[in-house]
């Protein structure tokens, strides 16, 4: 370790925030760009499965709530791109990397939203899992990232409550609604567990990330915490978690549960999820169809700036 590296690590260990202008190891910067960028992309792509139901929301109130949620998510994307930009990468570069497939987004968004209950389940399970990941990151070592996380967590927990509220309505609703709610949890339970990533035992990078406080807990810890929190919620709803092995382990003080199918996880990562093609195509088309707009806005801003200079 060089002197600089030692000092850097000491600051991290002392829970000091690293700011953009501070010295930082190249790998710290690169890892953060990847992590924050992926998170930003997830917010953006995450608009699509929910957007799929905005035009079909069942009441005006639900439509308004969903619109507000999707708007928040785009906002989160914006904070996160800004945080990433402080590390010396532009939003456009990150976008190009998303569109070319070089950078990933959370694989959960490669699953479809097939019924209105999925909108509830996405709020409850997917946002629930996201929060589980994000809450500790409020204490991450990189200042802009930490501050973005604080804002985001506040809104996400609101979203999660709204999702749970949708599930509640359906679980207490007609037979068809109950069936819809159960079908949603059947499809989304394991993909939600996958959101924490494979066991850290298999990951080489986790140790370094944890030393840098870019990662605070292991994937397995978070997954366990998610299961422990979610099972009683499902019971309260009267819904069944699709796992025969799920049961309370008195000794451990945790629920035992089945691992998701990691082969499916890697398949989805590779691009073979149910919606990978549709999601990426939607974003690519938004970007290429919108080029003339971005060009025009830039051209107009330049004209205005030139006119201002000329007038002065």
């Amino acid at each position, binding site marked *: 370790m060089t002197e600089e590296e030692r000092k850097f690590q000491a600051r991290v260990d002392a829970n000091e925030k690293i700011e953009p202008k501070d010295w930082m190891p190249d790998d710290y910067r690169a890892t953060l760009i990847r992590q924050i960028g992926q998170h930003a992309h997830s917010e953006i792509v995450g608009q699509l499965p929910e957007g799929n139901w905005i035009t079909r929301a069942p009441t005006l109130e639900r439509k308004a709530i969903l619109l507000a949620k999707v708007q928040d998510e785009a906002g989160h994307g914006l904070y996160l791109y800004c945080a990433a930009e402080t590390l010396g990468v532009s939003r456009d570069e990150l976008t190009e990397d998303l569109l070319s497939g070089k950078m990933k987004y959370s694989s959960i968004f490669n699953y479809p939203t097939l019924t209105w209950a999925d909108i509830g389940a996405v709020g409850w399970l997917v946002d629930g899992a996201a929060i589980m990941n994000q809450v500790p990151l409020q204490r991450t070592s990189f200042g802009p990232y930490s501050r973005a996380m604080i804002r985001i967590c506040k809104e996400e927990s609101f979203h999660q409550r709204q999702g749970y509220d949708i599930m509640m309505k359906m679980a207490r609703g007609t037979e068809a609604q109950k069936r819809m709610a159960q079908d949603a949890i059947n499809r989304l339970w394991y993909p939600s567990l996958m959101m924490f990533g494979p066991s850290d035992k298999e990951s080489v990078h986790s140790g370094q990330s944890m030393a840098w406080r870019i990662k605070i807990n292991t994937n397995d810890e978070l997954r366990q915490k998610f299961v422990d929190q979610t099972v009683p919620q499902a019971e309260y709803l009267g819904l069944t978690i699709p796992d025969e092995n799920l049961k309370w382990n008195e000794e451990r003080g945790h629920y035992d549960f089945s691992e998701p199918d990691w082969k499916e996880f890697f398949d989805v990562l590779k691009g073979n999820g149910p919606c990978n093609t549709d999601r990426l195509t939607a974003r690519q088309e938004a970007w290429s169809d919108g080029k*003339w707009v971005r060009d025009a806005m830039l*051209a107009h801003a330049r004209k205005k700036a030139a006119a201002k200079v000329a007038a002065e």
Partner: protein
Amino acid sequence: MTRDEALFEFCLRMGDSTLVLGHRVSEWCGHAPVLEEDIALANTALDLIGQTQLWLGLAGEVEGKGRDADQLAFLRDAWDFRNLLLTEVPNGDFGRTLMRQFLFDAWHSVYLARLLKSSDKRIADIAEKASKEVAYHLERSADTVVALGDGTEESHQRMEAALAYLWPYVGEMFAGDAVDAAMAEAGIAPDPAGLREEYDALVGRVLAEATLEMPESRFAHKGGRNGAMHTEHLGHILTQMQWLQRAYPGASW
């Protein structure tokens, strides 16, 4: 037509227009050219749906048959809708969507300003809440129309085409009928014909800045505000919008 029947129609015209335009705008979700526009479009749609709740809520109250805003939004077929035709035409490209928004916002802001002084306090209250939101919508859509009109050659051409496509739907905003006459007489809402001049001045100013020529034609498609003849597009909007309420009648969500 009793005064309350006219008032019911008036509320539907307001609420259906915000509902249908809110629906169209929300179709952009996740597909806008820049992230900031995704946010702005979602925000506009959200405001419009919020206004819909107020207008259709009042419509149900006035009607007095126990229908609430959701029942009015989700359980009427196309012919019972009273939205401006402008709000139901397809989004087209981003330029057309923003031009439509601007042409609507300009009317909306002028109209709501008069409704602030409505003799019906319920309407004045809705107008007060809505007009703040709409002032912001108008500022944004006007700025965007200017930027795209006076941007590149391509964007200028696209905005010209958008304006040409949409202009025939503007006249309907100012074509008064018996409902409007009843509202004007009761001091509830202005005679729409009387607003055209102010509208043209506002729109003309922005289009000029956008280097776009205001079309001279006064030809106007009509039939949305009175339900006589919608476009074929509305029916398709409703198949989506009303799906869940139609497929699962009586369920609560």
